[in-house]
């Protein structure tokens, strides 16, 4: 690691204030990605502002037809939450499959989506469920939040407070893990709600994306076979050691069908 100043503020205001005053600061949430980047000297922040002493950023609650999850809520808490399991079981399943047990005990929802790793699971959950990201400044729809590879609509100094997930009629998330890292080689979230069907794909492209053709087909008929013949073009998909773009495109189809099955089974 390169040298940095470490802060552990005890109020949200202090956290934001610190970030604004330092040269090149970063918020530290669970740190499960950031710590490794620092250890490998891939990042060189001047300051780290640890959000770990801000209990107001953690917690899971239901507000009407929305499930609200605090930004600092750990993956393990989401996976084990009865509230999440009852209202959006697909989200609990998604959280239960992130990283490994130890990572889930530290990693947070806010940290994951702020990082927006192209192979992370939560972006598919947030986009697929049509959630709203509530920041220190404003509310951002998932569709406008994820803007590119490791990029989001967050402005410097803007902090995620919580994410509001509308509770769908049914939803399913299935991922196919990259064998080494166990990140999503491809992960697909399918959700059906009064507002329609959303299909969000992670791992396959440089940034999580929706598949309108699949959404339309499933809106007509929420069955796996409704997706037959719908192909995601491989041109813009990731192509690397672990999977060609063609294979990823193929997996999007396979996993989307399996996600629909999971949604129908109420998993």
């Amino acid at each position, binding site marked *: 690691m390169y040298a940095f100043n470490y802060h552990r503020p005890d109020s949200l205001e202090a956290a934001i204030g610190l970030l604004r005053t330092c040269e090149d600061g970063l918020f530290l949430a669970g*740190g499960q990605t950031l710590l490794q980047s620092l250890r490998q000297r891939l990042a060189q922040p001047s300051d780290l502002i640890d959000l770990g002493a801000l209990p107001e950023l953690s917690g899971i609650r239901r507000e009407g037809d929305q499930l609200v999850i605090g930004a600092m809520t750990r993956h393990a808490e989401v996976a084990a939450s009865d509230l999440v399991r009852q209202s959006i079981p697909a989200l609990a399943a998604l959280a239960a499959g992130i990283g490994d047990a130890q990572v889930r005990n530290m990693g947070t929802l806010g940290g994951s989506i702020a990082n927006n790793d192209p192979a992370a699971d939560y972006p598919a959950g947030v986009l697929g469920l049509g959630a709203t990201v509530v920041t220190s400044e404003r509310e951002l729809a998932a569709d406008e939040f994820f803007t590119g590879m490791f990029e989001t609509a967050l402005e410097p100094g803007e902090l995620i407070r919580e994410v509001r997930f509308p509770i769908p009629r049914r939803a399913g998330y299935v991922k196919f893990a990259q064998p080494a890292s166990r990140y999503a080689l491809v992960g697909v979230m399918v959700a059906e709600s009064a507002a329609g069907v959303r299909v969000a794909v992670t791992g396959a492209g440089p940034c999580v994306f929706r598949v309108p053709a699949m959404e339309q087909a499933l809106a007509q008929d929420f069955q796996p076979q409704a997706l037959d013949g719908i192909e995601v073009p491989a041109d813009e998909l990731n192509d690397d050691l672990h999977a060609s773009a063609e294979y990823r495109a193929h997996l999007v189809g396979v996993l989307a069908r399996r996600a629909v099955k999971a949604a129908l089974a109420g998993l």
Partner: protein
Amino acid sequence: MKVSMTVNGRPVEAEVDPRTTLVEFLRKHLNLTGTHVGCDTGQCGACTVHLNDRAVKSCSVLVGQAQGAAVTTIEGIAEDGGLHPVQAAFREHHGLQCGFCTPGMVMMAIDLLRNDPAPSEATIRQQLQGNLCRCTGYHNIVKAIQAAAATMAATEPAPTQMKEQLA
């Protein structure tokens, strides 16, 4: 910067570089060398310890993040000179060879059994995703954890029994 926390039940305090990870703090400052480092990408799990009773990779936690927390390491799980049931089961079932991944495995296994006292083989294997072992092929680790689960279930008094004993 100054940090303070409880490690294996003992309060500790130290002046450290903010770059210090929890595992470096344990190994270098406290000389608790039972917790090992096997990788630099947070994946091998050799450094697994308990932070406020939850298994974490101590290479992926800055010492500042553990400020005020309760940390338990492999050196702090056995009571009265004996072995913790998970340690005993690893020995009984040859769940270790070179011993390097073992402390992390044991700490993960204890966490796993706390959350699921009677896990299936599939659950154990899935929960061990974050712990690499190159020696055992995991076969005897899985067996040891299953055996530990059985021992702990048999020896841990049920709440009613406990009341009776107290009465």
